[in-house]
């Protein structure tokens, strides 16, 4: 608790606010469930036996701690020291496992028999299905019909893991609509079901709870940097859709002098181009039209196709602590290939956003140490990139 109390990323207010962002804007039916979840999480998080159980799962099942890899070739080429936090090497291939192990353990502790989840690229869906299989819970994943098409391999993975996958045909048929459908399911099934939300978004306590489950990324990375380099990085970079991997790594460095950079897709720049709005249970920056209709995001990566952003990112942006630049799909495709060719690592398209920014901004960061969260591996994107690059 001592870190959280002093930190710029401390616990939210009683109403779940980070500054003026966050809150709990849910249908009345879900209010008691959110309250119950908040109480259960507080108790579990303060309970050494829960922490021990989670830490054991993170170590023995997910493969933590994830390592740091310095990119010597690419670093030399760009004139920076580039270091990757390898969340792509976790079991299921992304950082998402940190959160789902925490939530599924919590769901079991709360006596829930079933989880529902939304997914964009499928990484959270796969992670949720994995954790549900491990802990013996029923799992249903909602995925936009467009994403089901783009990420058919992950759909099959989830089914292999025993989850039911439902394609969502409403609205823009991407991540935001998958969230809507998962919330509708939860409204109807709340007594037996836990909604295993996949990012630092949604109603209180989700943005806070999911951040705490991903805090391990930043905590490890800071220790690893200090041990290896004897100093904190100058810049910490991560991609941002809802913003969970970014929050995770930022949490380790928010109270250092490091610049914090959350890279958004040009077609989904909630912080960059949005205005405060309310959707999916939270007040945050949101892409919307002149009447408050939520706009569709467009990005080459399904995982970042989200018109909103986690409320704590809105807060960090509003106080000037973190920056949220954008990159184009073309830059992303270059970043994707760059890491593959120079370092032998195929990144998820989401992470290629962070690489694209680093590659573009390197001239302004000469000699600096840049830590990037490589939040997922690119296997899932190979099929799509084969078409893009042919």
């Amino acid at each position, binding site marked *: 608790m001592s870190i959280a109390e002093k930190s710029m990323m401390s616990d939210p207010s009683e109403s779940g606010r980070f500054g003026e962002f966050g809150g709990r*804007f849910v249908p009345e039916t879900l209010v008691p469930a959110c309250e119950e979840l908040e109480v259960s999480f507080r108790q579990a998080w303060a309970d050494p036996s829960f922490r021990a159980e989670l830490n054991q799962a993170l170590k023995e099942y997910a493969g933590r701690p994830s390592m740091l890899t310095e990119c010597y070739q690419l670093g030399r080429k760009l004139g920076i020291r580039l270091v990757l936090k390898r969340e792509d090497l976790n079991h299921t291939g992304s950082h998402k496992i940190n959160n789902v192990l925490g939530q599924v353990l919590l769901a079991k502790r709360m006596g829930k028999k079933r989880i529902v989840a939304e997914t964009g690229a499928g990484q959270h869906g796969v992670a949720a299905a994995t954790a549900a299989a491990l802990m013996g819970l029923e799992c249903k994943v909602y995925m936009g019909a467009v994403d089901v098409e783009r990420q058919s391999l992950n759909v099959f993975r989830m089914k292999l893991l025993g989850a039911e996958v439902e394609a969502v045909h409403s609205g823009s048929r991407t991540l935001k609509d998958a969230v809507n459908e998962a919330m509708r399911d939860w*409204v109807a099934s709340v007594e037996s079901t836990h909604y295993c939300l996949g990012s630092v978004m949604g109603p209180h306590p989700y943005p806070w709870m999911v951040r705490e489950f991903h805090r391990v990324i930043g905590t490890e990375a800071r220790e690893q940097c200090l041990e290896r380099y004897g100093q904190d990085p100058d810049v910490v970079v991560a991609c941002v859709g809802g913003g969970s991997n970014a929050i995770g790594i930022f949490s380790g460095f928010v109270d250092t002098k490091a610049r914090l950079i959350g890279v958004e897709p040009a077609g989904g720049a909630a912080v960059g181009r949005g205005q405060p709005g309310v959707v999916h249970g939270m007040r945050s920056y949101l892409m919307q039209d002149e009447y408050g209709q939520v706009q569709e995001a467009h990005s080459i990566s399904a995982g970042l196709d989200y018109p909103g952003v986690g409320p704590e990112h809105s807060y960090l942006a509003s106080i000037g602590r973190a920056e949220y630049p954008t990159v184009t799909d073309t830059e992303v495709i270059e970043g994707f290939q760059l890491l593959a060719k120079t370092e032998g690592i195929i990144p998820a398209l989401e992470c290629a956003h962070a690489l694209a920014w680093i590659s573009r901004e390197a001239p302004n960061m000469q000699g600096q140490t840049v830590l990037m969260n490589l939040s997922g591996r690119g296997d899932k994107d190979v099929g799509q990139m084969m078409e893009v690059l042919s």
Partner: protein
Amino acid sequence: MPTTLTTLETELRAKRDAGRKLLVPYVTGGLTGWTDAIRAAAAHGADCIEIGLPFSDPVMDGPIIQQASQRALDDGATPVSILEGVRTLDVGVPLVVMCYYNTVHHAGHERFAAQLVQAGISGAIIPDLPLEESALWCRAADEVGLSTIMLAAPTAPDERLPRVCARARGFVYSVGLLGVTGERTTLASTATELARRLKKVTDVPVIVGVGVSNSAQAVEACRVADGVVQGASVVRRLMEGGPDAVGEYVAEVRQALDTL
């Protein structure tokens, strides 16, 4: 308990106290034929009419109302265009809007409240604005005499219901089941259970909505409740049969309720 009742609540209480069951049809604003559907509903026995302002992400709505909202949005409906349409209505029945909170938030609380009043709207139902988040809106609504209709859900513990009812103006929207709007083959047991719990703690009219799908279910709900909302059943008829079908259906439910 408010010291003075809103106009909407005074009217609904008077009807209820005279022994009438309250019938509140729902029509998606901007959907083809919506203004005529409202006229038809008013002419055939509605006591209040709920007008939905379509939103891109309607999390409390099932397939029928989602589809209606999407159609209306595709046809270019906006809160402004719908409120302009409302202004042309003179149906002699109080009108309330159902809208998601971002519509309110984006316009600004005071501005939105003023727009509703100018259009002749008496109240608002905001399904994703629970009690704990409602203070700013309620202040703006109270200021101009708009009724904020609070929702109560079957999941609420006993201690929560009086707090929800204390903030409700016009009526309390008693959510009939665990789930989103849409027609069901039977009335969920939660519909009457929650209405009964609410009647014990409030004198504000208790109206059951969500999952009340036909006249028989409306009668069943009204054996306990003061009235019913008819949402998906009305909207489906408007999409399938036009405003006349809405009028016929409202007349049928009215007749059934009047037997109680």
